């Protein structure tokens, strides 16, 4: 494992979530689960982040925002869609204002299902995202050389 997977910095964004999944994400940071021992830091700044943790479905207000934040993140980056709404639109899928899951806007690497997704699942999702991150880093290095 390279330094990349030992220091995954996260930007946590709530697209149109009911905040259920967000609370679970924040629970991961509390002493109960303490993802900081894995090196995770919740930066809140795309330019500092490796992992884009998104909750909630996509609506008109957040469509461009998601794209902009994703664009401002430096490579290599992964997207983790937390919760069923982020994955497919969840129970709001048929609503007039919901465009669907996050993957209708940006490429998603890891889906963490659940309503709300449990902290253990979220951590597992992040760990899997680290694997994807490693792979992307290797590809990037190969492309550069």
């Amino acid at each position, binding site marked *: 494992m*390279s*330094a990349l997977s*030992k*220091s995954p910095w996260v930007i946590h964004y709530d697209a149109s979530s009911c905040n259920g999944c967000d609370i679970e994400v924040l629970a991961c940071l509390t002493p109960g689960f303490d993802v*900081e*021992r894995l*090196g995770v830091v*919740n930066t809140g700044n795309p330019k500092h982040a490796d992992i884009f943790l998104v909750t909630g479905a996509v609506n008109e207000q957040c469509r461009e925002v998601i794209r902009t934040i994703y664009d401002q993140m430096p490579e290599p980056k992964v997207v983790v869609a937390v919760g069923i709404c982020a994955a497919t639109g969840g129970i709001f899928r048929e609503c007039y204002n919901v465009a669907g899951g996050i993957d209708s806007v940006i490429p998603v690497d890891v889906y963490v299902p659940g309503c709300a997704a449990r902290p253990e699942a979220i951590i597992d999702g992040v760990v899997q995202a680290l694997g994807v991150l490693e792979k992307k880093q290797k590809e990037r290095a190969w492309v550069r050389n």
Partner: protein
Amino acid sequence: MNPWLSALLYILAAPVVGGLLAGCDRRLSARMQSRPGPPLVQPFYDVLKLGRKENVVARRSQNHYILFFLLLVVFTGGLFFAGADLLLVIFALTLAAIFFILGAYKASSPYSFIGAERELIQMMAYEPMVLLTAVGMYLVTRSFAVADIAGHPALLVTSLPGVFLGFLYALEIKFRKSPFDLSSSHHAHQELVRGITTEFSGPALAMIEVAHWYENVFLLGWVYLFFAAVPWLGLLAALLAFVAVILVDNVFARLKWQTALKGAWLVTLVFGFGNILALALFAPEKHQARPAPVAVAVADPSGEKPAEH
């Protein structure tokens, strides 16, 4: 020790020591928050990761300032450990900090701008105390040279208790820790997003982090200077100061910048200036000027003396 050797040792060892200190910081803070925290070498993982990320910027030339920030911080620390003039060391550090601030201004984004302005306010807050520390050390040892101060036979802190306390206060500001983390925060505080470092990514951010490590080692070296007469005491004091800084960081919330500024000046006046006043008034025998050093590169005065006093 040969000054060049000391400087070289600093340049090579400071990142390692600084990184470990940063790791201790995170681990201690975590323990204070009842959680295990990251491994001690986590900052190294962070920097190595950042070094290999893409360099995303808001404006093309902003990272140039960061490079010079790093270079000048290393230069400052090198000067300090080589034993050079303390005032010049302070001024070099100021120059480095200004490059950092200008880089944030260059990024032209609201958050980096606020961070830059607040970093400036922080500088305005601690600069008087830092300069008074140098003045205080001069008053006791009659020299601005770090080498002379380190070699002084007496324990400086006994003549400079007020200055030492004021310096510790300024140290909290210089470490950018609560309650003075006005311009950015090492922890996950996101009120200003990342403040002054918002628009820097990848290698530039890694440089900032490493520069902060160099700076921290230099600052703890300065704490050591107060106890330099008894080296093991100095090392202990430096470590204790570091732990105290972390403790205060975890206990206090961030101050408003107005309060931080006025508080810092008040401490400077009461403790720093008070100490210097006491030294000037009650230790006049210390003010006999040392014999002037041998003249260097002084042109012949050409006998121009219209008046003999």
